[in-house]
């Protein structure tokens, strides 16, 4: 155990901090769930990329700068501490990216990853279907081989920001006679291909934050398949592990929220203290975020020594999603009657950003595999309890 950062790590932190201080706009961008905001965020991502800060962990040849996991944690800490915009291409960069690294051919990596790092291509996810949510193996959308193409038919849903995206990665049934997790393939689909119809779904915040996607004889080259035909479940599960694990939600994000919550409490202390549980919950939020950060460093250290992120990724997902929800609920309680005000309300002040976060926090225990599914995974794979 050596809890000192190396000189190289300190220099990196200083560099990232200085660059962000010079480049993060004081004026927040529009919501990335709108067309205007989406493009603003894409511009921001391009600036990050120009300074090799969009995907610091990726190899330099693929648009990154070859950082290790500790440096990635440092980057993330500085990123969130600076108040920089949320990452608009996280589906691609954080979920598909690592999958391509592990399962993609060299040609596929060269073709997709640098453009993903630069946010030239924006990615949407195509997993859930109307009747395949928590039960993802119930997927019925098909990708039937026809020469050197697949012909896609079916429907995907809950695809985040898909109406603004360029590409989709998804799971399709390539063996029509198969069932459950057999016979699926992991396919990449350009969203401007004829036969693709994207219909936006308004989310809790009133914005077209996700979409359903219809495939009607959509032809996609076989080269767009990741991993072997019929092995899509295996490939997708690796992605799910990344998603539930550290990559999608690094600790800096929640430590930043915890710090903002402490500041909010301090600013409204007199009224907040009328509810004696608020003070305790604020302190618990700091402890929860700190514990999540400590667990991340512990995990990253073990990874560096050759361990793999296993089923404990499911505990991560439960912890960050419930912590995020608790922090935003507490903020709403502190804000009291101002909590309901939208950003355009003249009296909203600092309240509206919390409301926005509160709404999004509602989704945390649901997306990336509901927390009930995570608890099943923990019980069956970590604890060895029998399947239902």
């Amino acid at each position, binding site marked *: *155990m*050596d*809890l000192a*950062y*190396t000189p190289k*790590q300190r220099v990196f*932190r200083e560099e990232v901090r200085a660059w962000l201080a010079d480049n993060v706009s004081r004026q927040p961008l529009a919501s990335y769930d709108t067309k205007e905001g989406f493009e603003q965020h894409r511009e921001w991502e391009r600036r990050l990329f120009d300074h090799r800060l969009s995907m610091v962990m990726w190899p330099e040849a693929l648009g990154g700068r070859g950082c290790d996991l*500790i440096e990635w944690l*440092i980057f*993330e*800490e*500085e990123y*969130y*501490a600076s108040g920089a915009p949320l990452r608009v291409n996280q589906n691609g960069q954080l979920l598909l990216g690592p999958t391509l690294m592990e399962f993609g051919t060299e040609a596929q990596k060269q073709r997709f990853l640098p453009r993903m790092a630069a946010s030239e291509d924006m990615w949407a996810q195509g997993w859930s279907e109307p009747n395949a949510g928590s039960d993802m193996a119930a997927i019925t959308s098909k990708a039937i081989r026809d020469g050197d193409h697949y012909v896609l038919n079916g429907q995907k849903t809950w695809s985040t920001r898909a109406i603004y995206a360029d590409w989709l990665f998804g799971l399709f049934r390539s063996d029509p006679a198969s069932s459950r997790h057999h016979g699926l393939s992991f396919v990449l689909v350009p969203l401007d291909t004829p036969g693709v119809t994207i219909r936006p779904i308004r989310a809790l915040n009133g914005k077209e934050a996700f979409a359903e996607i219809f495939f009607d004889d959509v032809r996609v080259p076989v080269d767009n398949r990741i991993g072997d035909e019929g092995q899509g479940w295996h490939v997708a599960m690796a992605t799910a592990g990344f998603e539930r694990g550290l990559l999608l939600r690094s*600790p*800096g994000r929640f*430590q*930043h929220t*915890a*710090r903002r919550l*402490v500041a909010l*409490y*301090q600013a409204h202390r007199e009224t907040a203290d009328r509810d004696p549980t608020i*003070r*305790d919950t*604020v*302190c618990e939020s*700091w*402890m929860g975020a*700190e*514990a*999540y*950060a*400590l*667990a991340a*460093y*512990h995990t*990253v*250290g*073990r990874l*560096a*020594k050759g361990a793999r992120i296993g089923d*404990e990724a499911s*505990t991560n997902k*439960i*912890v960050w999603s419930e912590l995020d929800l608790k922090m935003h609920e507490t903020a709403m309680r502190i804000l009291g009657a101002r909590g309901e005000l939208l950003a355009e309300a003249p009296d909203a002040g600092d309240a509206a950003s919390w409301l926005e976060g509160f709404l999004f926090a509602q989704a945390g225990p649901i997306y990336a595999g509901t927390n*009930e599914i*995570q*608890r*099943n995974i*923990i*019980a*069956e794979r*970590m*604890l*060895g*309890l*029998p*399947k*239902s």
Partner: protein
Amino acid sequence: MDFTFNDDQLAFREAVSRFLMTEAAPEMLREVWETDIGRSPDLRHKIAEQGLTALSVPEDCGGLGMDDVAWSLMTQELGYYAIPDSLADTAYVAAGLITALPDSIATRSEWLGRIADGSIRIAVGHPVNPLVADAQPSDLLLLSHDDEVHAVPRSLVDVIANPSIDLSRRLGHVVWEPSSATRVATGDTGRALWAAVLERGVLSVAGQLLGLAQRMLDLSVDYAAQRKQFGKAIGSFQAVKHHLADVATRIEFAKPVLYRAAHAVAHGEDDAPVRVSHAKLACGEAAWLAARHGIQVHGAMGYTWEVDLQMFMKRAWALDASWGDRGFHKSRVAGFVLGDAAALGPGRTFEE
């Protein structure tokens, strides 16, 4: 930056676990519960033979010179097996205080030597605890009188026993008179010693609580896997699974908090008290949840004297409020988090 244990530390933990698995089985624990003294001289002898009493003692006094980080693994094992012995009080908490005494205290090296060879049992009377654990069977008591530290032979104190729900905890109300003959530290020195003892005492209990949580989880998983209702193992039902998954999650996220606190104490970091209180709260909550969900999963069997779970639950309930109750530790955390000088937010987990 490496927030993990090295292979030696992990191998040491493994060895301790194997030893205690053999020597501190639940049947033995039950037997010791029924005795008057509540301690097994045989077990203590074997512990000393293994060198476990010598872990904290400096190498020049016959010990191994292990630090708080290694102890954070050791105390989890002591908790996991709920060993009916105050080993950590003597070999960790008291050893730390005595090591920090000035060389001018003539008996310092004698005491350390006896801790190392296992021939002395030392009780620690920190003011945060209203009663002194293991005062009755101790040879020496470290007691406080304002800032002063007194090392008092057992023969000079009266001990009034206060039975606990955990029958292997032997608490005593100690009646004694401070005198210059027993005084080993005063003033700022004494204050600093008691402050350091507090952090080690809390860390010790936090580690034991985490070990207890893991043991209760393991017992509950075993029970849920073999107990059948409606024609199948109750562990296949989601309601039961989720109870146990929540305990596993709580444990996973308490461990690194304990290790961070141990490092802070070992290196005398400024925020050590906050880290230690955070660890105690996280480990205590994991243990109480493991007890609550453990008894629920065990059903009526969990409410019996016969099933082993009870011994671990009672230890967890008892230790949770020792070395400072939750209010004490929450106050220390709040004092930091809500204070003006707090370095909060990303990037402050390891450095100010």
